[in-house]
């Protein structure tokens, strides 16, 4: 079965540094998402992306966050100046349609020191 691929699996960074989390969604999917899960807490929606623009974002997704689909296959999440509280598992997901099931990647564990 096709799968969503995320790299790296673990990322350690210093507070204030920029990080880019990478995702390769399933090739014929049209909708792309980022979620995150802080240790011991709920999986939280960050942003959805369709037709090369953000379709919806949560209050967590503030100006330090941005998403991009630079080349038609990758889907990236950039955090401009990381904070300690950005430490979390970040999940990318894609779906073929708006009400289709989401396919999740295995996540990138981000640790901000």
């Amino acid at each position: 079965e096709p799968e969503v691929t995320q790299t790296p699996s673990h990322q350690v960074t210093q507070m204030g540094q920029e990080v880019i989390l990478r995702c390769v969604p399933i090739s014929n999917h049209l909708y792309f998402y980022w979620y995150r899960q802080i240790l011991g807490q709920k999986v939280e929606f960050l942003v959805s992306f369709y037709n090369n623009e953000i379709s919806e974002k949560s209050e967590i997704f503030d100006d330090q966050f941005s998403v991009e689909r630079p080349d038609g296959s990758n889907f990236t999440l950039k955090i401009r100046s990381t904070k300690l509280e950005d430490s979390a598992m970040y999940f990318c997901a894609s779906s073929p349609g708006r009400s289709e099931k989401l396919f999740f990647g295995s996540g990138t564990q981000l640790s901000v020191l």
Partner: protein
Amino acid sequence: AQSVTQLDSQVPVFEEAPVELRCNYSSSVSVYLFWYVQYPNQGLQLLLKYLSGSTLVKGINGFEAEFNKSQTSFHLRKPSVHISDTAEYFCAVTAFYGGSQGNLIFGKGTKLSVKP
């Protein structure tokens, strides 16, 4: 706004015993309901979903869930668990606003550990 409550953070159970993982939701509009499973070091995988129709939904790996609108519940059940069912299970809801689907709202998760 929608919310999802998973009443048990951890459920230990012996192999071949039945299990029920509880999920309650709140929403003022129509919803779709989902159960996702996360095995160690893997991403979230859809177990089953309720969109409409029969309130008893069957999913993969022998799991089923029943939608109860009056109790706003969507509990997950399996009559006989295996060691391989050890994982974290997430209930999720997505709401509809004027025909447009919102985004998935997850519960906090329930860790199922199956002992031999």
